[in-house]
């Protein structure tokens, strides 16, 4: 697939993330600097009415970022936004997908607008979002 031949509705190469373990959450808490105990401390999570700890929304967002930078050089990403629509639980296996929904010229470059989704193993949406990328000169 060359970027200039992209059509509306085309899917970009998807990304499957490894299953989320408690270790994943501990590593992400340390590496991201997001030390909110709700993601790693079961006692704290239960005190606040949750059955278990759950994944950082930004972990799923980082997987979407990986999918985008696997597809285009990072410098081509103009914007990237997400909305968290459901909690990602421990043991979830997340899949990232992106679909071209618009193609237009702005600031002298051809840009593609993508619709992004992260779903869990049951196909339930957990994160929805969008991104704009600049395509290679045609």
């Amino acid at each position: 697939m060359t970027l200039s031949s992209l059509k509306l509705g085309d899917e970009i190469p998807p990304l499957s993330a490894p299953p989320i373990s408690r270790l994943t959450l501990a590593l992400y808490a340390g590496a991201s600097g997001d030390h909110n105990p709700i993601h790693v401390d079961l006692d704290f999570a239960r005190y606040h009415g949750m059955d278990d700890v759950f994944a950082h929304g930004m972990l799923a967002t980082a997987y979407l970022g990986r999918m985008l930078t696997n597809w285009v050089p990072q410098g081509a990403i103009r914007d990237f936004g997400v909305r968290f629509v459901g909690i990602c639980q421990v043991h979830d296996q997340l899949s990232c997908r992106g679909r071209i929904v618009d193609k237009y010229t702005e600031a002298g470059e051809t840009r593609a607008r993508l619709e992004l989704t992260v779903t869990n193993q049951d196909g339930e949406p957990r994160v929805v979002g969008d991104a704009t990328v600049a395509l290679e000169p045609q």
Partner: protein
Amino acid sequence: MIDPAFIGYEFGLHHREVEKGQLRFFARAIAETNPIYSDEAAARAAGYPSLPVPPTFLFCLDMDRGNQYDYMDTMGIELGKVLHGEQSFRYYGMAFADDTLSFASRITDIYAKKGGLLEFVVRDTRVHRGNDPIADLRSTIIVQHR
């Protein structure tokens, strides 16, 4: 109820130096397989001056400050009731290891839904390297009341 007077509240500028070890640790934590994000030789071969700061890591660098929940504390928000609702990035340039970045934030909106059971706080952050804009970030948090 969060006081809407906090709309417009500005947080002091903070600076962060991007460390290579921090980027490698992040790459491992998100199961990154592209070597440009962890191997400096691969990054240079791809034309970058050093390891790139990946798209979402600016959010992490912004959190890397004395009290990462300072604005929630200031507004009297209990951390255990907070969910991340939305996050967006608008990019103007890439950042790399060894860059020093500045982060300037302010609260741009506060609103409620479901009769006040859900409160939303929007915080905008501008990221610069020197005078060069790198990105604008927008975070929306949701405070859940039961």
